[in-house]
């Protein structure tokens, strides 16, 4: 591998780096290629840290600042790794008064992380949402695409055990 890949190889496999290069190559000569490149890179690499942004900026001949501006604007792009599963706790009014906050506390404690962070084993990313329109089921947590209603802090472990 080339010397310029050293930084990338600290975080990604050779195959991932090759994939990133091929994504850049595909959009290199097309105007407006930045967002499609970032989208595919996010999917292929699961996150877009500084080293990847640098490679994309160089590859597309764009200022680093532009790449960074776009990455931080869209919530789809993340600069830190996401977990295999995303756990969203609803903190809308109904869920909140029915114990949503306690659920967040339990999850933070269990995972040892804060909202917006990912567990060290990269299994779970914890997030909060403001209302899922499932107020009748509150408090609600959503794991990936599955909605789990009327969850008590004691039941959290059981729910999560379905995901591995």
């Amino acid at each position, binding site marked *: 591998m080339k010397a310029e890949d050293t930084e990338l190889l600290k975080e990604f496999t050779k195959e991932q780096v090759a994939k990133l290069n091929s994504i850049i190559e595909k959009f290199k000569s097309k105007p407006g290629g930045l967002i499609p490149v970032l989208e595919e890179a996010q999917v292929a690499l699961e996150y877009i840290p*500084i080293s990847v942004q640098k490679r994309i900026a160089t590859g597309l001949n764009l200022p*680093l600042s532009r790449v*960074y*501006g776009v990455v931080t604007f*869209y919530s789809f792009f993340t600069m830190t790794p996401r977990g295999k599963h995303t756990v969203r706790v609803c903190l809308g009014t109904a869920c909140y008064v029915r114990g949503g906050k306690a659920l967040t506390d339990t999850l933070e404690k269990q995972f040892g992380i804060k909202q917006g962070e990912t567990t060290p084993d990269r299994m779970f990313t914890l997030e909060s949402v403001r209302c899922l329109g499932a107020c009748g089921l509150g408090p609600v947590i959503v794991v990936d695409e599955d909605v789990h209603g009327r969850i008590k802090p004691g039941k959290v472990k059981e729910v999560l055990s379905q995901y591995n």
Partner: protein
Amino acid sequence: MSTVKLTIDNRQVEAPIGATILEAARGVGIKIPTLCAWTEINHTPGACRVCMTEVEGQRGLIAACVFPVNEGMIVHTNTEKVRQARKMVVELLLANHPQECNYCVRNGSCELQKVAEFVGLKEVRFDYTQFSRNELIDNSSPSIVRDSRKCIECHRCVSVCEQIQTVSVLTPAHRGSKVKVVPAFDLPLIESNCITCGQCILVCPVGALYEKDDVDLVWKALNDPTKHVIVQEAPAIRAALGEEFGMPPGSLVTGKMITALRRLGFDKVFDTNFTADLTIIEEGNELLKRVKEGGTLPMITSCSPGWIKFCEHFYPDLLDHLSTCKSPQQMFGALAKTYYAELSGIDPKDIVSVSIMPCTAKKFEAQRPEMNSSGFRDVDYVLTTRELGRMIKEGGVDFVNLPDEDYDAPMGEYTGAGTIFGATGGVMEAALRTVYAVVTGKDLPSLDVTPVRGLEGVKEATVKVGALGDVKIAVAHGLGNARKIMDKIREGKADYAFIEIMCCPGGCISGGGEPIPTNNEIRVLRSAALYRDDGNVQKKRQSHENESVKKLYDKFLKEPLGHKSHKLLHTKYVKRGTELPHRNDG
């Protein structure tokens, strides 16, 4: 040009197709406040929402800076609804803007202050301390301070950095209420590719971007009886300093500036123009040497430290094209603590060398590690025009009514060639005058080399120089224009012998340290003042006629490009590249 007819505030108005309401209104003297539009650089993001107007048939209020005029349109800029809306917008802008106006660097020149007055704001019902952004002030750069707390997200700095200078350090990042203007990865400015030109400061409407203030350090030196404090001023200062005291742009205030500096307590008042003349001798001879000995051509001027840093970042492969001459500021610094120390019998360790520059990049340049060839820091402190203005005010000097005084010897004499260094094309013109005389033994048929003057982005000319034949030259100002020439060199398509590049649009007269406002109209007036100094005020107009420079060679340097010159007046450059250092801070 085809036009449309419309009505603004019951007046019939004609405006070009494609013009915005703001432009049409301005054209007929109707004022619409704005904090983001800067039409000179095509920056109209419609971001600040202050320019609210009513357009009949349109729902809601319209942002005048982005809405194009069309035939028969009826616009109202002064209705109750408009006035209330503007007031509300400004009030909301102030809701999280630190109310530190009394001690803000932009007190008096702040556009937000002026707009608040314009819209007749009488109160702000929000306590800014409740909402203010929890941001740290970034003073990592030796040149530019960023105070994001005060930023109103107009994004002018982003445009000027990206469109005009093509450096693209700053970007809006994040989203919603968390949006802020930052370098990539929220890095401190010093770790970015910032070339420290300070053009962002000139367009900032508020105090979110400003020069690193070194005034107190200079006061301290002046107050120290053991120190001998000398000062040099760049040519662009004399063409702009008056504006800090309400004088009209284009006032040439050389004499008053000298008097003011003496009254502030400087022991000797010298002139950067002296070393500008010296630069021409060294650089002119370097050019001739490269032509004769087959050195790297085209040779490019190296007086502008923002341009140098730009070249080091973005064209590290072309550094050999740069003249090895230090800038006049640094030549002065190196001579101050050697030649002047020797002549005056003052120990160089007791000399404090201060320079007054139109430039924030000069602060960076003075701190470059290699700028110590005198054995000391060659230039100790650099103040911008604005900082000197503040110092003069603080010192209680009535600038406008000062008598004119003259420079001290031996580093105060200058010619017209030295003074036009401050405007785009000036270094080229000064060099041509001397190179022509050296080669042919005669003066240029006309000392006014007009093709290199003016605000056109890239200027080209061919000058017949005796035995050298036709010499093709180019001049660029603003780094976007510099890029055009540099790309040509990279492609091997540049057949010039000599190129002048100045970092800032218009040259030093609109450097990042010059008075605010600076715009194209003011650029023209300040340049005109320098050409007046050259054409009407100075008796000598060619650098090689400077008697003090001749004496410097006789007594000290011996010859251009000689041993001493190489040690004191020439320098090397650093390949920086464009990659940011990778910081693993999680």
